[in-house]
């Protein structure tokens, strides 16, 4: 069993708190550009977490995860999103959403409890895995918040950021327990995120071209009569 110093655990906990705060920012921010900046901040927190864990667990693979995360999510994905949304990301300040911010925060709190109680029975079985008690619940909560953001927002760029914070959550949770993805899986994961971002970005551009906006809340023609 690897022993980790309390200082490293404190740093990891602080990074997790930062990760959560940025996630909340993505979820409740009413400005598209601010939401994008919160996502970039969260991706930096994920990078930091991977670096902390790499150092504490002496795992080189996590250094790769940190590098891949930084390049794809802090640099490439925001560039794609700015390109996809065009002027609208600067011009339009308010993002439509189905619930007001106080109600959204309340629902987010409920999701946090659900996430915690879902992971709680698993944690005792991971007693010999350092950081699992910090990263795994945080990751699952972020996956739930991301799903909630997708459901909440009526704006394609904001919905895409919901998807991306879900992915951040999945990786934040798993870096504590999986440090040894095979090389091929790591390469594939590194390629996957930019491809997904690029294709969704292209789709957002098509929506903007055809409907004149990146709002998807107005796209509601398809349903049973």
């Amino acid at each position, binding site marked *: 069993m690897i022993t980790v110093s309390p200082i490293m655990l404190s740093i990891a906990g602080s990074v997790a708190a930062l990760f959560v705060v940025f996630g909340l920012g993505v979820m409740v921010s009413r400005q598209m550009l601010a939401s994008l900046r919160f996502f970039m901040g969260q991706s930096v927190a994920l990078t930091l977490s991977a670096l902390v864990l790499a150092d504490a667990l002496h795992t080189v693979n996590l250094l790769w995860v940190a590098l891949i995360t930084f390049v794809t999510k802090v640099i490439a994905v925001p560039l794609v999103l700015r390109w996809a949304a065009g002027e609208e990301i600067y011009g339009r300040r308010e993002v439509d959403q189905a619930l007001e911010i106080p109600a959204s925060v309340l629902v987010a709190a409920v999701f946090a409890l659900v996430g915690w109680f879902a992971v709680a029975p698993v944690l005792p079985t991971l007693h010999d895995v350092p950081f699992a008690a910090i990263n795994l619940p945080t990751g699952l909560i972020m996956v739930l918040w991301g799903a909630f953001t997708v459901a909440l927002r009526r704006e394609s760029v904001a919905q895409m950021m*919901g998807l991306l914070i879900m992915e951040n959550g999945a990786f934040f949770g798993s870096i504590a327990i999986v440090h040894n993805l*095979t090389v091929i899986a790591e390469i594939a994961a590194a390629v996957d995120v930019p491809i*997904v971002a690029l*294709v969704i970005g292209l789709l957002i551009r*098509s929506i903007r071209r055809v409907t004149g906006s990146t709002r998807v809340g107005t796209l509601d023609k*398809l349903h049973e009569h």
Partner: protein
Amino acid sequence: MNTEWLPALILLVPLCGALLALANRRSAPYFSVLAAFITLLLAISAAWQVEAHGPLSGSDGLFYLDALGALYLLPVSFVYFTASLYAIGYLWARQQEQDKDAAEPRYRQYFPLMNVFALVILAVPLVANLALMWIAIELTTVFSAFLVAYEDRAEALEAAWKYVALTSMGAMIALLGVLMLYYGTHAAGQAPTWDGLMTAAPHMSAPLLLLAFVLWLIGFGAKTGLVPMHTWLPDAHSQAPASVCAVLSGVETSAALYMLLRIYPALVVNPGIHDPAAWYITAGLITVGSAAFMLIQVHDFKRMFAYSTIEHMGIILTACGIGAAVHEQGTIYQLFAHGFTKSFCFFAAGLAGIIFGTQEIVKVRGLISRSPAVGWALILGTLAIAGAPPFALFLSEFEILDTGYSSGQYLSTGLLTAFIVIAFIALTYQATRIAFGTPDPAQEHTSPAMKIPRSSLAAMVIAFVPVLIFGFYLPPPLVHLVHEAAQLLEVQG
């Protein structure tokens, strides 16, 4: 004979097809059909090898194909071939229907994407690593999004967006489950493969395995179209070209279901997980029941077949729960036959849409009098997908229900029977209205009979062959493969 190269070659051929289609616009359809045909031959050859010599592996453990994977590979490659052939004339006819002065269809956009889409579906049963399977499933959404939005209208983009948002959301949820299983297999000293998972499962922490499964059920359930995560499916199918619907409905939704089926024995062998079948039966019955009632009130015949897909995914999940995989191979056969049958239904529906210029059931009457070939194809396809004899799905559904009743699971099997009957009545009622009703003279005036594209007709005829034959006769090697696949889902605990 060295067969290690077969799995890699199966993936390489569609990739070459995509690149050639991208390089040459005029020949794009023909390169694609050729690539799909070669892939079909290679898939048959791979399945043959698996049947004769056991699982195939290659490239230092990167690939692994067993009987269940081979049985999934066959409909995927077959539908890839027929859908590519069908699309040549169908896309042209759709273009003419919408704008007679338009240039030829955007083959250069369609065919490269279709080849890459097929490639990633084919990768699901071929790759050995669980994380790579997840990536392949996620990429199916990414590469098919623009196929769904091919017609570039607001409705098509709406459908594509819903599809991407919901299924990607599901994929992210499933990702955490995949990585948890990665940890579980690694902790038990096993590789993150199906075999590794089965070996590790009895020793894995039950809460961890259960949480990973629940994340899979929600995540992959969204891709499979399980209720209530199904809403993207009817929308995407109503807007996508019929050739895309054939692949989406016939084999793409089954890719995620394939993952849910394969994790089932791992749950059963874990001593800490009680009654995993209940999860499958509950999720399956909710899905079948909802789809059956939606079929009654559906107004669009492509949406009708989409709801039928949701129904089938629910039947397969329920069947797995009630144990039909083990006792009678009903689950496996249903998964296998669904791919062939559903693609045939969408081929017929696509041509009906071209003939009438609409997909609204209320506006489509007397299809048989307008086009006997398409009319009868629609009727036969509907009967086949609804589970009428003598088609393959009748056999599988009969076996599933027989297993349920004979093992004393009266409530769940009774409910499944009732939902299948409701869906059968709804489907056949809608199809007979479309095929035999009196044609509206005004409608006939506004949409003069359109010539049915020969390539599409040929694809429909080819697609009908397995639909018909597998109801009467399953070649002995296939029977053996079905048995082998059922054994993989068999639970020793």
